């Protein structure tokens, strides 16, 4: 027991960032203004409300932009594609993209596999 306020808040490191069962990312939702954000925070970036709720994010979204990177770094083989995506619930995300963006396809689905690196990516809906 302690008398120091907020000392027992859950560790930030333990906040979930993805859910492999649900194949989605997990962020936080503001109980006041409903703003969703990833990764999750303690306070809402929009209205400052403290104490946000864990929230699963949309599984699908739109590809905003992409770039194929030809320089390897940190053991990840090049080339690979980095992308900016806006999920259908409005959250702006950045991550690896699988597929052929030159195809013009803009719809993506989130995939999660914690045994892989990176543990989540966007798959272009090309089929």
């Amino acid at each position, binding site marked *: 027991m302690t008398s120091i306020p907020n000392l027992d808040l859950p560790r930030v490191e333990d906040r979930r960032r993805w859910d492999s069962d649900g194949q989605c990312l997990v962020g936080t939702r503001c109980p006041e203004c409903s703003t969703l954000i990833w990764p999750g925070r303690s306070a809402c970036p929009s209205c400052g409300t403290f104490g946000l709720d864990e929230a699963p994010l949309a599984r699908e979204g739109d590809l905003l932009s*992409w*770039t194929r990177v030809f320089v390897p770094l940190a053991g990840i083989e*090049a080339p690979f594609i980095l992308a900016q995506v806006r999920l259908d619930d409005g959250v702006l995300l950045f991550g690896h993209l699988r597929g052929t963006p030159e195809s013009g396809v803009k719809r993506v689905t989130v995939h999660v596999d914690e045994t892989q690196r990176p543990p989540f990516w966007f798959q272009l809906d090309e089929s």
Partner: protein
Amino acid sequence: MTIYVDGVGMHPFGQFRDKSVIDLARVAILNALDDAGVRPGDIDAVYSSNSMNGLLGGQEMIRGQVVLRELGMHTVPITNIENACASGSTAIHQAVLALRAGAAKRVLVVGFEKMFVDDRDASLAALQSASDLSVTRDLALQFTAIYGLRLQARLESGAVTLDDLADVAVKSHEAGARNPYAQFRKRVSRDEVLASRMISDPLTLLMCSSISDGAAAVVLSTDTPAPLDGRARVRVRSSVLRSGDFLLDAKQKSTATLAAEIAYEEAGVGPTDIGVFEVHDAMAPAELIYYEDLGLCAPGESADYLRSGMTAIDGKLPVNPSGGLSSRGHPVGATGVAQIAELTWQLRGEAGERQVHDTQLALAQNSGGWLEGPPAACAVHILERSAS
């Protein structure tokens, strides 16, 4: 209160394998003190900017003191500043705040960086730490890719062409070729730019800034008498720093726009009143984005603006006459200070072969770090030449 830029100095940017950060910073500081006509004992506070000498040099703490004691500055308050690629402009901003607060009368700002350390992976890893590593570590994030992302969307929409992207790099190299402080001093053609190695779609090697060594220094003062030689004086009209705004909706203004709007208001001027710009073109074509963000042209019109020739060295609104980050070089902690040095030379008419037209107002924009959308920091400074 009027804040003056009394002196500026640089060590050239480039690859200097045999020089330490002290060797680099010493040249910039001595040149700035000489330019201001002052000695170390005349300085009553120092703001020291460096981003990477902890990871790359092992000097995690008191980096400024280690450099400054070499030059006899050791009892005045020395504040160490780190704000990724915006460290230099952040240090300038802190110096301005100290002067405005009356806490100092004459302040030295120095920015220095040594990125060539014979370990490319270490340099790239240090650069990656300008992001939230808990998000980016597994993504192999490189800053080239961030600019690639921003430009790819504009290419796909038809707002800019590959030739436009290459032409900005040609323009930057032309300026760098004229700048004795620049890392890259070779003119290049559009074909050479497009044929160089692809780094991150659509950015090729000749569009990108490299790792770099270098230093820059500035002496700022307030309420000091005008120089007797009648030389033009440069004053600070605006100094604005903002941190990353989370772009929760697509229509939100960029951090650079928000910072610039405050800076214009502080100075009581608009973008078309400014005669010369130094912007944060870590990749040359990023200039196009800043034309729009800083209000030089309307959104979506940057390509036409470039093609008009307005932003060339001999244009009406020259942008990056130094060669910018992509050609002058981008030793991270020195860049924001070097922008102020360049614009001071330009306003005084001392920029030699890269001198732009006679103008009274100049703007520097320097961004740093990245938070999966916005930069982590963005500073805008407006300088004015006053009639002594």
